[in-house]
């Protein structure tokens, strides 16, 4: 349902590509964790799927449509079907938890409805439902900047779920959280993944989390795919390959 064909992304002023010649298919309902050191291209990979990142070469197809070839309107429609959560949450400061959750609907409404804050009864109910699901009901009217990291990420997830997405993308969603909270966030995501049959793709540093929750693991190194398989196939050799230090003489001091 998602397929990448020879995807290469080279950032401006960089010589080495951030993603190089990546080809792979992702089927509906998979729970994929993407491993790799920072700078391996994980973030870039996730962002090519919803078109936040333009490609240098190749093509990304989602449900048969080529992401880079869509008009602005079509791109927006595509994105409404993909929830995304971020390492730094990217909530809107000074708005309440509930208001932030409701912003998940912004892509699916007319401009005047958004500006005036006209949400249907059903949308409000839906927001209340996800606030409840994610244990946020008692914070609903609190401003988001007063929440802890784990609570903020739950707001991020609720916002993404408000879109009623069929794909959930996560760009290092637990990298700034404590291990125990990270695990609870992953548990929440898996529950939603199972309930909604979400195709889930998440970048993560923590191999244990990936092994515990993913149905398939991808590993990137310097923009190249060096592992693609079941969590059980991730051997120690592969593990050390992913995380090994670059040899000293390659480093610029």
């Amino acid at each position, binding site marked *: 349902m998602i397929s990448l064909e020879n995807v290469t992304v080279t950032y401006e002023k960089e010589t080495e590509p951030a993603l190089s010649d990546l080809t792979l298919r992702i089927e509906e309902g998979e729970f994929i964790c993407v491993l790799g050191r920072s700078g391996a291209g994980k973030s870039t990979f996730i962002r090519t799927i*919803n078109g*936040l990142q333009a490609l240098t070469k190749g093509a990304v197809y989602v449900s048969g449509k080529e992401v880079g070839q869509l008009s*602005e309107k079509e791109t*927006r*429609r*595509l*994105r*409404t*079907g*993909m*929830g*995304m959560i*971020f390492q*730094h*949450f*990217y*909530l*809107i*400061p*000074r*708005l309440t938890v509930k208001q932030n959750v409701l*912003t*998940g*609907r*912004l*892509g*699916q409404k007319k*401009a005047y409805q*958004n*500006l005036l804050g006209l949400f249907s009864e059903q949308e409000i109910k839906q927001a209340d439902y996800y606030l409840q699901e994610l244990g946020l009901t008692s914070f609903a009217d609190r401003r988001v900047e007063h929440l802890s990291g784990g609570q903020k990420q739950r707001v*991020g997830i609720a*916002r*993404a779920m408000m*879109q009623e997405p069929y794909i959930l*993308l996560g760009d290092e969603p637990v990298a700034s959280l404590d291990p125990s909270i990270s695990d609870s966030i992953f548990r929440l995501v898996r529950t939603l993944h199972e309930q909604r049959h979400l195709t889930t793709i998440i970048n993560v540093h923590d191999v244990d989390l990936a092994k515990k929750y993913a149905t398939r693991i991808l590993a990137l190194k310097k923009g190249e795919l060096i592992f693609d398989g079941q969590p059980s196939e991730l051997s120690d050799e592969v593990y050390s390959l992913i995380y090994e230090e670059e040899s000293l003489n390659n480093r610029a001091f």
Partner: protein
Amino acid sequence: MVWFRKRLIVYVLFIALAVLLSALKVELSFVALFQLENTWDFIQRNFWPLRWELLPYLLQQSLITLSVAFLGTLAALCVALPISFLAASTTSASKAGYYAVRSSLSLVRSVPEIVFGLIFVVSLGLGPFAALLAVFLHNVGVLGKLISELIEAAEPGPQEAMKSVGSSRRIGQIFSIIPQIWPNVLSHYFYRFEVAIRTSLVLGMIGGGGLGQSLMNYYNSLAYEAMATAIIIIMILVIVVDIMGGIVRKRVI
């Protein structure tokens, strides 16, 4: 001396030179400073007793001054807020548009209110409306620049989140940026309002009505006690607005 580098001496010499040249240009004279006593004498001899019977009239005039400042800056804020999105490098529609809007803002900003005032007093007739237009135009330039800089400094994260929920470019920008910058927008607004009160006094002196015009009339007819009364009212006015601004800012932040 960790904080000081040799280059600092060059800077200091440069600034000293600039100070010297400016002092020569303004005919800085220490002799004249000793004549400040005369100013004090003038105040003591002519400002008292204050003419409190003018109070009702002066309060009426100060309402005009206040209205000019308030309406002029509020209208300027309403116009500058949308324009500043076009004048910020991060949200402008195009490179060309950015430079066009930016330079037109500089243009209106570079014309002092008194110049606008002189033009409008001649073309539209004497009275507060000419002053209002002058305050409005100049402040569109000032607030447009200040707000566009706030927009440029706003955190990009929430903007990316709004993009990924599929919102349109403009709606996404409005929702992710305005809540972030709002307290600073109000802060700038109140400062400009305060400045505009003083400006509308000056504009009154060239025929823009209000307290400034009364002040000028008293001055020209050598009614110094009346002038002193007007000055006291002006001081109170500015202080009251400053306090009000402080209260509103506190409530918003």
